[in-house]
């Protein structure tokens, strides 16, 4: 009957459980993933999520994916962190119902990073 943990701490714990370390840079929770395809395939790329977007994790997943500007993916907006930009990339599936929500989010980000130059 009991509900699983939620919010920022649950998001961080979910990443840590996958062996992904996180760090706070201002309002961003920053972590690194390796895209499987694209110009950055196989390299470790920094990405982040705004902490305020994680209050409803995983029932309401984040909207924006933040990355350093040097990834050169078109369609960006300014990020809260200098030298970074953000992209509107809502998760298309039911991340709240996924067996492992953090894993589903990382897969979503990894797919997006496949567009990096």
């Amino acid at each position, binding site marked *: *009957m009991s509900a699983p943990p939620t919010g920022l701490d649950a998001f961080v714990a979910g990443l840590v459980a996958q062996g992904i370390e996180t760090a706070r840079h201002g309002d961003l929770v920053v972590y690194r993933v390796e895209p499987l395809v694209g110009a950055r395939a196989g390299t470790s790329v920094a990405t982040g999520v705004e902490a305020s977007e994680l209050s*409803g994790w995983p*029932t*309401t997943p*984040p909207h924006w994916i933040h990355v350093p500007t040097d990834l050169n993916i078109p369609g960006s907006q300014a990020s809260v962190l200098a030298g970074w930009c953000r992209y509107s990339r*809502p998760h298309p599936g*039911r991340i*709240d119902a996924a067996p492992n929500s953090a894993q589903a989010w990382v897969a979503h980000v990894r797919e997006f990073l496949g567009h990096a130059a």
Partner: protein
Amino acid sequence: MIYQRYSAAMTGAVHSQLADQLLRSDGQEDVCLATYRPSTGIERWSSVLRQTVMPREGERLVHGNASFSTEYVLRVAAEAAADDCGVVALHSHPGGRGWQGMSDADKATEASYANLAREITGLPLVGMTLAGDQRWSARVWDRGVGRSIEASPCENVRVITPDRLRVSWNDIVRTRPQLGPTQMRTVSCWGDEAQANLARLRVLVVGVGSVGMTVAVSLAATGIEALATMDYDTVKNQNLDRLLGATGLDAFLGRSKAALSGRLMTEAATAQHPNHQYWEDSVCEPDGLRHALDFDVVFSCVDRPWARYVLNTVAYSDLIPTIDGGIHADPLPGGGMRGAMWRSHVAGPGRICLACNGQYHPSHVMMEKDGSLDDPTYIASLANDHPLRSRQNVSMLSVNCAGALLGQFISLVIGPGGQGDPGPIRYHLAPHWLQHDEQDACIEGCPYPRTTAAGDFRQDPTGSHSEAESERGSRSVARRNPIVRAGRIADNILVGARYRLRRAAIRRLDGQARR
């Protein structure tokens, strides 16, 4: 903690477990314990039953007047405290019918454990009685301490089954409504008892646009006593083709939709003692949610994902059935109409949730929270057929959707022919086809069924709602205009005069009816 009202709620599954334990085949009284979570509104405090904890061998005595052992109470109180719950002490009156009073022995038994349960859990003991007709009664031991502890009576107990809302009423705290001559035709449709049940429900309509306004006015005309609406939006010129009762004057004077609904509900009310309220809040704001927790049933007449997410949450966590619906118009690109569809469904324990039936997407909630859905540039970047761009609506379609929602309400509360709410339904206009959705349960892994009866320990779905704040701010600015201010004063005087005239007419009509 003293509240204006108290209530208790449980799922049909919990009710069945308790009835199996308490209504014995040998006709003797029995007892058991359960745990609950509080669900705290602004005026109402509800105990939402979470788990039954049946007695082990030797933990209760059945001897005419059944009793608990102290070990049983201690065991359950410790389990409850570990789960952030309080304790419910339940017993049966197999020969009783309807809401049960308390004998001196009943009072002494519950009072003797009330301090103990509160000390261990930090929450008041809730006492409940199940009568032989499966009607519940309940009280909360929240007043005084030690030997002077007293219970506050609940006004009702709500049992939410997969297709019905069954409510047991405390006729002393919430008296049966007087039926007036204006309600003769309504009462003749389903009888005094159903009307007494229906009219006492506390019903909230969230969103009083084209669908919600029609719903609210219909509920007022049906005689619902405690009816409220909530909407932060303003009547605008572009609403006038769909918004029941709205005029160009309302748009010019910057009336809120909530205030308009208040006026229309007052004019439509047939209850002898209506208690109709309206709030210019968003249900996504903390106070909006707390208002919602004061109600037995909520109509979700909103068109945004965040509000649906909030109402979906409380449907499960606080056992408040949410009747939701919507309209999808399908215009042809070059003019003309391919079709339209309106749908209705009830969210709550045992039913499919609003996320699983596609009424909102969880990822869109954050898009609304961060203001993207109110950013014209962002909306323009979405595909033409994106659901977040779809704003087409027609008054004639809205009335149909409102009718579908009200039909769900009647089935949920009255159950015509013994049948409860039919599950999710859609009406397709072009072929005039009524479709019952095949998927009537949540997808595997959906978090909402797991949050059933979480009460105040739900994940907080609310936050600062900048769009609502902005809309209310715009109204305040508009009202500073001297012409608007003068217009509002004149309109208020006319509305007040009309209200007094109407009351006088009703008194005369009632007098004629009595003669």
